[in-house]
């Protein structure tokens, strides 16, 4: 804030004169009040609830300290949900990043040098992004339907399967069915961000590399990839955090089943809270999730620290 002229507040109406700084706090406060009330206070309340045994149905509400956390440690279902969440996250984020990168390179290659925009192609791939998650779950549930689903029909037609597969009833298939749905829904986001990044790479670099005899792979390896690394990191972080928190897509597609084979952390916590109505233990699960995500976020904020300071 160098060279900022000092401004004398002057009110025509002769009302109360407020300093610039006071105005700032005044204008920013509604946002922080709302965030405090609807986001920060509930987090604190969840922490508090997690120290209680609270079963409204039985009128139970007692302070139990860290007892819930001890139970969590020995809860096989919690660890299973952790494993499911990690498996889902790693598989879907890796696939989305690879596919998204391929798609971005494809779109970039099509416009390269021709100056023509790929507007219609971008419109096409933004559709899955815009489809409500719940709707995409219903769309895929119908595609996966064992008897009249399109997927089984097509696979049968090309001779890949002889018996229809009940994708969502088989514990081994169900989680992968959920991954495919997630990949369909979110690859566009990755592709569009990466495409925007690709557009900022100076074309002269490629020309220079070609003059020096670099092939397509070498150009990619030594120019595109290093320059795009910041965008790749951001896509990775955003997608990873979304995946860890995944709820609606899987909840509507499989409800966490069959068995608990697709039960992610969010689904387990949700069921504990609102189906078995264990507000204390459910809050413990939720808090554990919050801590996991917070660990990731702080890592991310650390990466972004420079940006934040610049921005401020």
């Amino acid at each position, binding site marked *: *804030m160098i060279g900022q002229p000092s401004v004398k*507040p*002057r*009110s025509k109406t002769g009302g109360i004169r407020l300093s610039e*700084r006071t*105005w*700032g*706090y005044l204008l*920013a406060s509604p*946002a*922080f009040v709302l*965030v405090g009330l*609807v*986001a920060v*206070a*509930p*987090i604190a*309340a969840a922490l508090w609830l997690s120290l209680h045994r609270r079963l409204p149905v039985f009128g139970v509400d007692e302070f139990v300290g860290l007892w819930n956390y001890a139970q969590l440690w020995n809860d096989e279902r919690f660890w299973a949900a952790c494993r499911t969440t990690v498996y889902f996250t790693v598989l879907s984020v890796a696939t989305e990043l690879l596919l998204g990168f391929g798609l971005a390179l494809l*779109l970039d*290659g*099509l416009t390269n040098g021709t100056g023509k925009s790929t507007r219609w*192609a*971008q*419109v*096409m*791939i*933004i*559709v*899955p*992004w*815009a*489809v*409500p*998650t*719940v709707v995409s779950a219903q*769309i895929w549930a*119908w595609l996966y339907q064992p*008897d*009249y689903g*399109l997927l089984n*029909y097509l696979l049968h037609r090309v001779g890949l399967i002889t018996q229809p597969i009940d994708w969502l009833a088989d514990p081994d298939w169900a989680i992968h069915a959920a991954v495919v749905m997630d990949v369909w829904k979110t690859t*566009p986001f990755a592709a569009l*961000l990466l*495409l*925007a990044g690709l557009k900022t790479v100076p074309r002269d670099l490629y020309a220079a590399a070609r003059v020096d005899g670099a092939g397509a792979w070498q150009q990619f390896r030594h120019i595109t990839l290093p320059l795009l690394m*910041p965008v790749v990191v*951001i896509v990775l972080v955003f997608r990873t*955090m979304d995946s860890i928190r995944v709820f*609606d897509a899987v909840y509507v597609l499989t409800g966490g089943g069959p068995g608990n084979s697709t039960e992610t952390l*969010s689904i387990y916590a*949700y069921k504990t809270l609102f189906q078995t109505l264990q*507000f204390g233990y459910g809050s413990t699960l*939720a808090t554990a*999730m919050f801590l996991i*995500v917070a660990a*990731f*976020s702080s890592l991310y904020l650390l990466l972004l620290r420079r940006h*934040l300071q610049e*921005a*401020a």
Partner: protein
Amino acid sequence: MMDWFRTRGWALCMLALVGLFCLGPVLWQAVTSIKLDEDLVRLPPIIPDRATTVHYERVLFQSSLGQSLVNSVVVAASATAVAIVVGGLCAFTLARLPIGGKPVMLGLVLATSMFPPIAVISPLYLLMRGLGLRDTLIAVGLTHAVYALPLAIWLMTSFFRQLPGELYYAARVDGCTPLRALLMVFLPLARPGLAVAALLVFIFSWNEFMFALTLTASDATRTAPVAVALFPGLYEIPWGDIAAASLVVTLPVAGLAALFQRHIVAGLTAGSVKG
């Protein structure tokens, strides 16, 4: 030249495949929605030789989906209004006014956007119940507004920052209060940026499921995604009705996204890449 044609032709083929992957599932849902019930359980043919609008009539006039769509419009519109007004004031401050602790504030805003919704859902439910707001559109709209605030603030801060600071000082010297400077000088200039932020908040709210599911309990307050998820099937799943409902719920946001695709991509990029 030949080489160029070959690679380009190859690329276009790949693009066609991508198109099939992206649009295919939605198109299949569209085909399903106009199939007669007896054609739904027959495959082949993939494209039926007869069509019906019975599923659309049923979901629009004989189910609560119509009410849910109205609810969704009310919720998404009010969440957008609150997020833009409250977020706009905050963004303007962060962009232009000399207050301390801005990195902390921006960090807090960003951290909020990373909260897993599940971590706040039970206290939020208890809070809304305590305020007598459970099962009201106000509870859903307010929650959506707050969880869209980080995105809105982040975007609008960067838009306000792109406007020349001299404008602000000129307005102040002319006797405007900071609020007046925002309303009379900045707002008209930042309108395109605000529109992008509003669009993204609207789409977020329209699609949101977990808060809407938890905070509502009746047909009168359910939003459209909740209605689609809980579609009633008495004996078997009504796939035709679900398909019709899916398309009706998707059309507004998919249309907005396709229409403003360039702005949305710009907004998403500004929100995440540029920082």
